[in-house]
């Protein structure tokens, strides 16, 4: 396998006396699509929050490949610094900026890759103008990528649900990540939209060299797109492997369907 971009080493997260994550280890390789699945409340989103700096893990290491090729330990870092290093995420319950336009939402993503400050904004000198044009251009391309270019000047809150999810992906892509974390990207989508999303995810990997870690409940999609699957249950990693291995794993079947009582 190629080099790893994300290496999570036995992280734990406690909320008071509750252990939400218990020694979870996981690796994502370059240009790999990995899926994190598990029943509701298994700790999948908590895991995402620990990686992206929204929570600080109680113990363990989150190592992220940096631009120089070395591993950087990111736990305890602020969310915006983690994003600057090259991860970007979407949210389970869509967190767009509702009263900004679709294009502006994507432009926000470019914030950490651009520089112009207060003086640049007020004077509108050549440097900040050209930077602004670049930002607009890049954001338009990303909107085209997710097929939302005709909604560019529409307020984000007026978009239908499925399109909002795609917009979140475009916004995440605007931060120039190498690792994309998608939290239930297909939730609330109809089968056609899910298929289109599947194509988009594969396209992101092929054309933009993304490594992708996604949380998803749509098993059909998970099984067809992911190279490796990790299963969480009650904060513990109970299985990992490719689609076949995982779907035949008795522990996974037990977690999802429960165990028969009849002896």
């Amino acid at each position, binding site marked *: 396998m190629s080099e790893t971009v994300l290496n999570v080493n036995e992280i734990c997260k406690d909320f008071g006396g509750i252990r939400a994550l218990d020694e979870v280890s996981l690796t994502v390789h370059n240009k790999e699509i990995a899926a994190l699945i598990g029943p509701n409340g298994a700790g999948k989103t908590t895991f995402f929050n620990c990686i992206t700096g*929204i929570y600080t893990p109680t113990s363990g290491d989150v190592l992220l490949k940096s631009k120089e090729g070395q591993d950087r330990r990111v736990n305890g870092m602020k969310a915006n610094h983690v994003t600057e290093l090259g991860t970007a995420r979407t*949210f389970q319950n869509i*967190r767009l*900026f509702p009263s*900004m*336009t679709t294009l502006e939402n994507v432009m*926000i*993503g470019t914030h*950490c890759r651009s520089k112009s400050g207060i003086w640049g904004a007020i004077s509108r000198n050549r440097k900040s103008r050209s930077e602004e044009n670049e930002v607009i251009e890049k954001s338009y391309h990303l909107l085209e990528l997710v097929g939302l270019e005709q909604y560019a000047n529409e307020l984000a809150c007026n978009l239908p649900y499925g399109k909002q999810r795609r917009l979140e992906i475009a916004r*995440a892509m605007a931060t120039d990540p190498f690792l994309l974390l998608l939290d239930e990207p297909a939730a609330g989508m109809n089968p056609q939209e899910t298929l289109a999303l599947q194509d988009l995810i594969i396209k992101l990997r092929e054309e933009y060299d993304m490594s992708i870690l996604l949380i998803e409940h749509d098993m059909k999609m998970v099984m067809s797109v992911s190279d490796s699957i990790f299963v969480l249950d009650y904060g513990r990693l109970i299985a990992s492997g490719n689609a076949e291995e995982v779907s035949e794993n008795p522990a996974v079947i037990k977690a999802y369907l429960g165990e028969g009582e009849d002896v």
Partner: protein
Amino acid sequence: MSNTVVAEKGTQGGLAFFFTAGCDSFAESLKKSVLAALWFMFLTFPIMVIRVDTIENTIEWRWLNLALIGIGTFVLSFLWRWMLARKELNKGAAAKESSLERSLTLATSIPAAKWTLLACVAVVAVGFPHVAGMYQTNIMISCLTYIALGLGLNIVVGLAGLLDLGYVAFYAVGAYAYALANMHWGFGFWTILPIGALLGTLFGIMLGFPVLRLRGDYLAIVTLGFGEIIRLVLENWGDVTMGPSGIAGIDRPTFFGIEFGVMNSINYMYYIMLGLIVLTIFCVNRLQNSRIGRAWLALREDEIACQAMGIDKTKTKLMAFALGATWAGMAGVVFAAKTTFINPASFTFWESAIILSVVVIGGMGSIRGVIAGAIILILVPEYLRAFAEFRMLIFGATMVLVMVFRPQGLIRAKRKVYKYEKASVTGAANE
């Protein structure tokens, strides 16, 4: 779809709709109105009906007032319900644009109309002190001051969404900076104007640091406390600030060393303030559609998502606080120069509340809204002086009405429309 809209419009105008608005039947709305009338008659009974004549030792019963209040409330309650029901029906339409906003958008979309409109405003603004008297000009200066303050607070509250109730503290910092520097060292207005602005920025950052982790109500309380602390310091640190008696005899601004008489200097003050406003509008307008402005908006909309998208929350918040305070500092210097006398009583919580009302009633994050808000909130009470004791009542009623019928403010903020020329980037657009 369009049929239902037409139908709604039809019922909306009808007399039947007026009489049953907000109720199931006419009987019910009649009952509601009668109850409202009885309740108001009861409430106002002691003040509107009984009049005690302490000299003659008699009580006068003014039953006519009671009847008038009953009838008035009865009619008004129908009107009130009708307006509320109409607002409910038009909810979809209200989300779009009001007629005022629509005409403004239309006017600004045509370049010729836009420039004519701007030229008209400029001519009126420049010519105002020559046409109106000294009293009117003075009122206009204070209105302009509130526009500047409102636009400054708009950065903090409207754009970045940080509820700041102690904004007047920075205003006080600017005013006292000029008053003290002028009293002790004889510094002139033009020297202190940038220094006052800078001090405002500094205090903005000083307040910003400890409140970085706070949001919403908590932030409001802490900033309120900060505002009061500054005022109390000004009041009690008599050795430096001269205490409650204030500082008098502050120099008016000079024009390249030339001093003016009282009349001319008011006109001069007006033009200085006008220049400051133009500068403020220019800066705020450019800021709000920049990278920084977008970051502020994102911070207001969703703090967690904003941080996850790589925006440094700390830096962005501090920038908003600092820039907002800069304008308050500047306005403070102008205020001290205009009144030539300042004392802590000018910087009470009431001022903060008024500035905040200007922003909220005008429309959060909207420059035109803030200007409209300041004009209404500052000029209306002035011109209502004719109504003497009802002045504040009408003022309060205006605020309530605006909040009920236009909670999003008089003129809402509009996002910039970006145009994208494909031709310029054909090479890259191929993928």
